[in-house]
Each structure stands twice: as structure tokens, then as C-alpha cells.
């Protein structure tokens, strides 16, 4: 895998298809896998891909990188890049997606991440080149519906109590925002102070407000990379909320985020036929 990844990246440089590449490298001292940006073909020899490449590099895509930028993407990462192109963050030709065959990652170095156990997207649907053997990737061990079943089974009151408790340890560090490839607002709602939408300190009201807004902003956009939850230093299970909303959006709008370019896109599309049961309209129930 590493050898063919490195050769592919060198070729992209020599053919003039990329000016930089975002990828993973093993830190020579700490041995941890960290993000790296290379701008010369000879540096491709530092690139790696294996099950320690847990982070979603799409969070590091910015327009001030030397473009076109190549980016090493797992399945979920590729969906996020695709979404950012759909949303107009980048022109299609500014991005070269280097899709790697991903059998799932292991953040703890041992067990397959929970997010990977339900993965149906081992190879990025956005792929300019593909690296690795895509023929023998694992089948999902469980479904999203199973993951959120316990939330769906709760009464509204139980659900409210569950989330209040779940958000309690939140310290408003916003690591979940920084790590999210689709948190791309120019100024985050929580950084605005005129008006102040969300109070800056951790307490039940502001915790709820932050996590509600975060989740709503990701409805129909979240690609289930699960980075928010992995990044949280206090283990807040906020990604469950994203999954619940993803299920609703798929059901109501027949839209699966990032899988194909364009298409019906609930967040930016106005349609008089939109389901509006929440307004008490004719689609109620």
C-alpha cells in the first residue's frame, strides 16, 4: 500500500496534476501518525496509509494551500471532500482525490473503531486515483439504525434527559468543531457576540444550545466520519445526534451525503413539495 501510494503521488507531481498533497506520515520520534502537507515529489516517501490513519484530512483543506491539492482520502473523508465541492468551497478541478482502500481504522491501536464497524463506504466515491486492493474490503458488522435504536426507542422526555446528561461534561473547547471537515462557517455561531447566541461557559443551557446548533448545522451534511466524537476530550457522544438527523434526512429527502456530486441537496434546495410535517402541515404523521 505505502509503496503504491508513494508512486502514485510522485506521478501526480511529475505529471503536473497537483502542487501539494495532504497525507499522513509517521512522526519519526513519537511514532504517532500525523497530518503532513508535501509540496515536492521526493517527500512522497514519507507518506503512509494504514489503520492508524484515523483523522479526516478534509478538515485541513483550505484555499490557501498550493492548488490543485491532492488529498489522501478514506471512504468517509472522500464523502466530506465531495460535500465541500458540492457546497462551493472548492472547484472540482482544485482537488485531486487520492482514494485509498480502507478496511477501517483503529484509534486505540487494537479494536476497529465503532464508526468503522458500520461503514458501507470503504472507498471514497470521489476518486481521481485509487490505491490499494478494493476487492476484499469488509462488510459492515452493524447498521446505523442499530446504533441509534436506543435513542429512537426513548420517549421525548427520556431523550431530553439522556442528552442533558450526555452534554454535562462538555467544556466548550470546540474540538468537535475544529476537527469536523464540514464545520466551514466563516464565523462560527458560538464566536459571535452581537448577538450572543451561545454563552461561552459550560452549563446546562449553553451546553444544550451548542450541541443542538452543531447537530442541526450538520443535518444532511454529516458524512459519518465520527471525528467529532473521537476528538472530544470528555467523551461526549455528540455524533449519535448527527446519526439520528442523518437518518431523518435520508428518510425525508432521499439524500445520502457526499455519495454523489450535486443531486437533491436538502440544505440549499427550495422545493414547495418539501415535507413540512413539523409545521403541522398536510404531511403530519
Amino acid at each position, binding site marked *: 500500500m505505502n509503496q503504491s501510494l508513494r508512486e502514485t503521488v510522485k506521478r501526480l507531481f511529475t505529471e503536473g496534476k497537483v502542487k501539494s498533497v495532504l497525507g499522513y506520515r509517521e512522526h519519526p520520534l513519537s511514532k504517532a501518525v*500525523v497530518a503532513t502537507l508535501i509540496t515536492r515529489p521526493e517527500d512522497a516517501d514519507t507518506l503512509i496509509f494504514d489503520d492508524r490513519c484515523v483523522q479526516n484530512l478534509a478538515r485541513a483543506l483550505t484555499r490557501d494551500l498550493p492548488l490543485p491539492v491532492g488529498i489522501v482520502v478514506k471512504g468517509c473523508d472522500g464523502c466530506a471532500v465531495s460535500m465541500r465541492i458540492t457546497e462551493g468551497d472548492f472547484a472540482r478541478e482544485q482537488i485531486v482525490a487520492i482514494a485509498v482502500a480502507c478496511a477501517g481504522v483503529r484509534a486505540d491501536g487494537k479494536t476497529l473503531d465503532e464508526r468503522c464497524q458500520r461503514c458501507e463506504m470503504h472507498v471514497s466515491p470521489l476518486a481521481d486515483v485509487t490505491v490499494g486492493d478494493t476487492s476484499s474490503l469488509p462488510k459492515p458488522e452493524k447498521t446505523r439504525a442499530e446504533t441509534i435504536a436506543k435513542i429512537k426507542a426513548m420517549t421525548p422526555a427520556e431523550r431530553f434527559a439522556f442528552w442533558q446528561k450526555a452534554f454535562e461534561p462538555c467544556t466548550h473547547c470546540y474540538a468537535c468543531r475544529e476537527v469536523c471537515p464540514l464545520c466551514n462557517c466563516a464565523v462560527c455561531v458560538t464566536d459571535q457576540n452581537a448577538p450572543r447566541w451561545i454563552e461561552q461557559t*459550560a452549563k446546562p443551557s449553553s451546553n444544550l444550545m451548542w450541541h443542538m446548533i452543531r447537530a442541526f448545522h450538520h443535518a444532511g451534511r454529516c458524512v459519518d466520519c465520527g471525528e467529532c466524537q473521537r476528538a472530544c*476530550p470528555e467523551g461526549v457522544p455528540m455524533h449519535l445526534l448527527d446519526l439520528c438527523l442523518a437518518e431523518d434526512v435520508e428518510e425525508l429527502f432521499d439524500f445520502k451525503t457526499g455519495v454523489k456530486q450535486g443531486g437533491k441537496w436538502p440544505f440549499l434546495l427550495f422545493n414547495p413539495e418539501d415535507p413540512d410535517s413539523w409545521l403541522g402541515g398536510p404531511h403530519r404523521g
Partner: protein
Amino acid sequence: MADGMRLSRESLQAALRQRGALWAPNDAGHWSQVEALPELGPIRPRRPVKDLFTPPRREIARWKAGAGPAEIEPAQPDQTPGSVFGVRPCDARALLLLDRAFLQPSCVDPHYKARRENLLLIGVACQPGPNCYCGVFGFGPDDKDAVDVMLTPEAGGFVAQAGSPRGQAFLATVPAGAAVPLAAPRPGPQPEWWTGLPDPKALYANFDHPMWHELGISCMNCGVCTQYCPTCQCFTIDDESFKGEIQRLRIVDNCQRSDFTRMAGGHNPRQVAASRLRQRVLHKFSYIPTQNPGLLGCTGCGRCVDLCPLDRHLFADVFEIMKRINQEAERVA
């Protein structure tokens, strides 16, 4: 070799309760008030002990909203006497640095001062974790220099030694057990590749080095490292209102956030992510040791390494930076 004093858990707890309230890390690793001495994990808790001295959210004053001049009620410093049990040497050493910020004679923080004066620091020697590096800073897991009492756990209790005159006075109130000879202080762990602390001046001399931008890509400036850092002390002021009552708060802030240095007019001297990462490294390893000889901005607790969502390693970064600076200096020479 000085002697230590053998203490049973029960007699220590009784003496601490006699003294006042008791704080310790809870199961989630947050500092909270407790009734009894808890069992501690092997290493430092998730949150640094600074939370008790300069908490993430603290009221400064409150007033009622309405017409006419507001009657401002300043918050009173908490003078509750008591003790903090389970302080690790890395966290205690960090308080020495916070003292420089909050007890400087020209501008004393009365809340911090009250806590420092009223709370006895009861250290407990730890078993360092894989990312603990106190050895880099010349002390070890049973260092007593920054606590009032250092305890080394043993079956049924502890061996205690005083770290300060205040700790000595406290130990005199505990029913004495047998005196036991103290083992030599344990050396602290350091990375196997570590060769020594960087030269603060050489680091600053490379302020404009392109490597900061290369490192910048591996960091997303989430600031988790600063929020769990025992020495980070930056704060901001904010108001919150609830049902017509307004609270003025001092709340935690951090240099990794993009708005940390943003001016009212929109200018931002640390516009790009790499400049904020550089600020963190230079503050800890260059500015603080330059301005406060003998002190460093880091105590090697390793929480930033443990908790970094992107698996960055502060020491590995600092080491790589210094290696490059040295190599380039050699090439020039």
C-alpha cells in the same frame, strides 16, 4: 537520609477533615469536594489541579438589570479552609508558575490568593503514564518541592514527608505512626530520544522559520492542549444574564482560538494556524524561561500528548524544531 512518617488512611482522613473541606479528583478526573479520601488512579487525573485555583468559569461580580445606576456586588474570595488530596508533582509545580501570574505584587488576584492560602496541597506520588515527561524538567513522580505534604502509598496507608513548613505543621497534628527511612526520590521519565531542553533564545531567533508552517498543517488549533494544560492561565471576561440578573465572569480563554488576538477593528496578528501553534511553543519554551529564570512553561504532565485529537506530540515537535535549528546553524558555521 531524612525519615518519613507512616500514616494510616483513617488518621490522615480524620486530620484533614479536622482542618476543613476536602477536594480530590472524582472518577471522571475532575476536581470536586469529597467527604472521604478516594482511591486514586495510578497517574495524574484528567483535569489539572489549577481548576480549583483559577477555574474555567468564575464570577467576578453581579448586578440587577434595570433603570438607574446598578448596584454592583463584587464576588467574595472563597476563604473555606481545607485541603486538596491527590495532587501530582507536575500539577503542583505548575502552580508555582501560576503564582507568578496571579500573585504578582502589582496585581494580586484575591480569589486565587485566598485559595492558595487556605488550601493545603497533599501530594500523592504517582506511577507515570506513557506520555509523562516530568524527568525532562528535573523532577520525578514523588517530588515534594511544590506540595505541602508528599505521600507515598503503601498497604493500608502512606509514608508522609513534609514539603513545606505548613505541611510540617499539619503533620504534627496527625497521630504519629512509625518513622521510616525514605527512599531516594525517584527520577522522572523522559522520552528515550530526548537530549535536553531547547535554548530559549535560539527558539525565538527562529520566529520566522518556515517549519512553523510545515508543523501547522498537523494542528487544527482546537486548543484542547491548552485547556487541559496545568500551566495555561489565559482568560477573558464575559457577561451572562439570567432572569434580569447579570453576572460578570472571568472565563478560560486560549491562544489557539482564532479570535484570541483579533482586534476590535478585525485585524489579527495571529491570523494563520501556524502562528498560533508557534505562540504556544514559544510561550512555554522561550518567553517564560527568558522572563522568569528557573521556571518553564511546561511541567511534563503530558496531557496535551494524551488528549490531542490529531496525535500531535509537543515534545517530539520541540525536539524536531531544535534539531533543524541546530543542523542549520552547523551548516552555516
